[in-house]
């Protein structure tokens, strides 16, 4: 069998237990042949299973490292974890830790993603076209920082604790956020086109939330500042507009600004356009 740059993996049957797909790295697999990919060992409960037992593998005629996964992968975790380069796409749903700690490359998931997607993501671009679970762009227990760089785009709705402890990078949420959006946020930018749930920005220390859609209720531990922020707004709104058309009307408007959470460091800001 000849080597290929990209592979298509079609799920044959649901596994008995959750499967760790972190060994599937587009860049690392590029240049191997279909047989080698099929023999890749995946962790499954307390044992390993060969990839070929769960997936049909075909070579793709891609010119750059690429993986295309097809099927309902909700029992498959850690897709694209620590990914460093290449393209990875999934047609169905995925499990937890999608793109966790990824450093570069592109991931697109057509369906919904489980919890902790993009957690501790450091670079690259991750797009989820469906909904996303809790703690997306967040941090693992004990880690001081959640998402650390790159761009996350979610077209659906997000679960609770969206952007928990996020430190850097840009997140665009086109649907609605669950409760505790941006909890304990350290820095970075979250742009929201939809609504947010209860207690948005709880314990937020720094960072920016841009409300492009409906205006949120401002918590009692946030306070308004009325100074001229047109310079920062110009920089930020132009950038967001370039990232997604849902935000391309921001630049022409002037937002209201509140700061908080005064229960934490209080240097976070909400820029409210809606």
């Amino acid at each position, binding site marked *: 069998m000849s080597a290929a740059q990209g592979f298509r993996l079609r799920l044959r049957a649901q596994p008995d237990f959750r499967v760790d797909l972190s060994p599937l790295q587009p860049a690392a697999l590029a240049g191997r042949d279909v047989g080698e990919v099929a023999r890749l060992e995946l962790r499954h409960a307390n044992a390993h299973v060969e990839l070929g037992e769960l997936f049909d593998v075909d070579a793709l005629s891609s010119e750059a490292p690429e993986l295309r996964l097809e099927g309902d992968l909700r029992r498959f975790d850690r897709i694209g974890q620590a990914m460093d380069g290449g393209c990875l796409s999934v047609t169905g749903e995925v499990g937890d830790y999608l793109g966790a700690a990824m450093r570069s490359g592109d991931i697109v998931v057509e369906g919904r993603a489980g919890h902790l997607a993009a957690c501790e993501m450091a670079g690259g671009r991750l797009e989820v076209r469906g909904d996303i679970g809790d703690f997306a762009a967040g941090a*693992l*227990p*004990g*880690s*001081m920082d959640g998402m650390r760089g790159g761009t996350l785009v979610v077209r659906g709705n997000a679960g609770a604790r969206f952007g928990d402890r996020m430190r850097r990078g840009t997140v665009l949420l086109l649907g609605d956020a669950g409760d505790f959006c941006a909890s304990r946020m350290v820095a970075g930018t979250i742009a929201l086109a939809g609504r947010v749930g209860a207690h948005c920005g709880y314990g937020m220390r720094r960072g920016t939330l841009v409300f492009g859609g409906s205006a949120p209720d401002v918590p009692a531990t946030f306070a308004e500042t009325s100074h001229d922020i047109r310079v920062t707004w110009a920089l930020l709104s132009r950038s967001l507009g370039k990232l997604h058309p849902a935000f391309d009307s921001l630049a022409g408007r002037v937002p209201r600004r509140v700061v908080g959470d005064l229960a934490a460091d209080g240097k976070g800001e909400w820029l409210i356009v809606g």
Partner: protein
Amino acid sequence: MSTIRLKGGRVYDPANGVDGETRDIGMRDGRIVALHPQEEVDHEYDVSGCVVMAGGIDLHTHIGGGKVNLARMMLPEDHRANRARDPLLELASNGCCTPGTLETGYRYAQMGYTAAFEPAMLAANARHAHMEMGDTPILDHGAYVMLGNEELFLEMLARGEDFERIRDYVGWSIDASKAMGVKVVNPGGISAFKFNQRKLDVDENHVHWQVTPRHVVHTLARALTELGVPHPLHIHASNLGVAGNIESTLATIDALDGLPGHLTHIQFHSYGKEGPKKFSSAARQLIEKVKAAPNVSIDVGQIIFGQTVTASGDTMRQFANADLGSPRKYVGGDIECDAGCGVVPFRYREQSYVNALQWAIGLEIFLLMDDPWRVVLTTDHPNGGPFTSYPHLIRLLMDKSFRDEQLARLHPDVAASVDLREIGRELSLYDIAIMTRAAPARLLGLADRGQLGVGAAADIAVYREDADREAMFATPEYVFKDGRLVARQGRLEAVPVGGTHFLETEFDPGIEKTIEQYAQRHLSVSYRNAKIGKDELCSCANGGALLACKVHGGRGGK
């Protein structure tokens, strides 16, 4: 039991004056025996080309109890990486700074250590400490109970209670907690912090009880001497980590007034305040004092660069350092009118002026001290660095050129100016055998450990000679515990349960009335439950051997 001969190794057994002679060592029934050269044995190991020493003994390592477990819970990120392990003998256990107890036992044994002592057991947490040590496989263990900050003790001191009563109280505390010695941490300072006092010098009064650390230290040292406790009072002196604390350290030595005392992690207490950063090495001042005070022994608490966590009973100092934590987390607790605990993760950096100097001060202390019997090799695990860095530390002490290489990587102002540059001394294998086996055994009163004489316990480490001392001490060829092969070339061969060393003190049981009354009025636990019986110790310690240690004809009993 079988008979074993280690044939043809070079033996370093300082307790018996053996300095690198080639001789055979025999073992039978867990003990070292004299074997006739022709005597048939069950197993003979050819250890020519190897160095034979008694098993290592760590007399100050935080391996068990509440604060260690809190440190584990606090640092899941330090425990996520899995290493390959022997699935038959090793259970899943992880961590670098504060590994699980199982991992702790495996790692110590794999580098030739056979005993380790938890230095900071709170009386209120004693069962827990014994349980963790009981789940630390292979190693024998014991603990020093923390005294000198309990409200009852301070109250007795404040009201001028007869010394004999206090001595009985100390004897009772050792017995109740099944301790191997007594440690005092920031004498009076942990309690003072509960009364919102943020600093306590040796001759400064506790804001509430109006007693001084000098008084606390002297009283405890005297009590231990009179009780005949072999291990001198284990002292974590006042002002840990504070620039200029050499003054309080020297004053603490004076407070002993000639009574035996062991000053622990002395590196953290040997700071001057000279120089541009008002922070300097006071190693020479310290060593001058210690040389002149034969009643004093020390262990170093060497720092090792990299991530670790500091866990201490010294809440006053730990809270003061909470903002320096990296990652920025803090656990602190005021505990049961007894003591406290403070946990601060820490990352020692080569490019930090202060850390680089701390590193140099530790090494200076090791190298300037002329009597290896009074200086014990420790990193104050995990406070200065994890115990797994001992082989690295040994190489730093034995290899001047290696030391210079490390020195060159430090903060330039430190690398260019420290005394350490001028110290050419390289420790010998004999020195190392003293500092890591013979001296700690002697300081703990363990007559049959830390040595290879006939009749001693067959705790033995066999290292293959290697000019790279770090590699040599990291992976011994063979490690025997009580005559049983437990590790070979870094792989475990057996995982026996270790034994518990504890002291059997004598004291006037009349003191229990005072303690009972105090507990009823002030504490939250029945006095009866403050005492750990031998059966209970056995169950806490996971069924390991109970290694009772008699006191030295003390004057405590009636």
